[in-house]
């Protein structure tokens, strides 16, 4: 198996940075999922696609726009009507979905090499992300497991809340290093640690 290289590597400096004399309030990591896929149902086929997601991942999507969940290994969330992002620590998600998502149900797009996933955690995660994205990060408006499609500096990104103070951000791989650097700068004032 060819080892996948991280686009963040030249700017990925493990350790504490910024204003951390009084402790770090942000932890930044790259989660490096083995597979990332996007699934889209044809109109009227959404329920079959949701059943396929359950069959492949074991995750039962909650109702509602942007609903999702994560078991720490696999994650899924809705990002548009009838469309879902699924990530797994293991490789092979696209092959597994190809067996159950027939052309009559919808489409599978393998983005494993096209997206980079950055995790931001800590008591100031909402504060730092609010500098990038014009969306409501408060827990009642953005519950654990839910996903959001939005933009930073006119560049598209997807955000899933995977904990009360933890978010996984899916960015274009080619923009990932730029976003990472910006995220580090935005975290400096509260003190951050790269793990």
């Amino acid at each position, binding site marked *: 198996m060819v080892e996948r290289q991280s686009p963040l590597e030249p700017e990925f400096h493990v350790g504490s940075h910024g204003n951390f004399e009084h402790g770090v309030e942000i932890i930044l990591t790259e989660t490096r999922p083995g597979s990332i896929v996007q699934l889209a149902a044809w109109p009227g086929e959404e329920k079959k696609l949701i059943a396929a997601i359950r069959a492949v991942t074991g995750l039962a999507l909650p109702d509602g726009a942007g609903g999702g969940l994560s078991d720490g290994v696999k994650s899924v969330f809705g990002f548009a*009507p009838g469309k879902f992002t699924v990530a797994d620590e293991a490789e092979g998600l696209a092959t597994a979905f190809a067996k159950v998502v027939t052309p009559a149900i919808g489409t599978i797009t393998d983005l494993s090499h096209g997206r980079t996933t950055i995790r931001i955690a800590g008591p100031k995660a909402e504060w730092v992300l609010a500098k990038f994205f014009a969306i409501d990060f408060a827990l009642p408006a953005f519950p654990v497991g839910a996903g959001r499609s*939005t933009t930073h500096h006119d560049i598209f990104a997807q955000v899933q809340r995977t904990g009360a103070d933890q978010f996984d951000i899916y960015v274009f791989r080619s923009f990932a290093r730029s976003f990472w650097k910006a995220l580090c700068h935005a975290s400096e004032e509260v003190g951050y640690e790269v793990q």
Partner: protein
Amino acid sequence: MLITCPYCGPRDVIEFTYQGDGNRERPDPASQNFEAWNAYVYDRLNPAGDHNEIWQHSGGCRAHLKVVRNTLTHEISSVAFVRGDHGRGDHGSAARRKAEDKA
């Protein structure tokens, strides 16, 4: 200006792209009715008040939306999926008929 996307909720206007006047009715592509094509390309109601518009949530769920925006106040009184029922949108035709009935 905030637009409340039926999927994503209230979002800043920077996430949206204006796709044009929602009152236009596109003739059948095979149509050779030049007056209908001329009307589609050039005629606009240009109201001072509520206006039917098509917007795309390009920086979000990417759905196309039919929006009613007041051209005097920017107040948005309605937002819906163009293909909410997975059928053809009827955004333009009803408003145009209403305007034509008045004329």
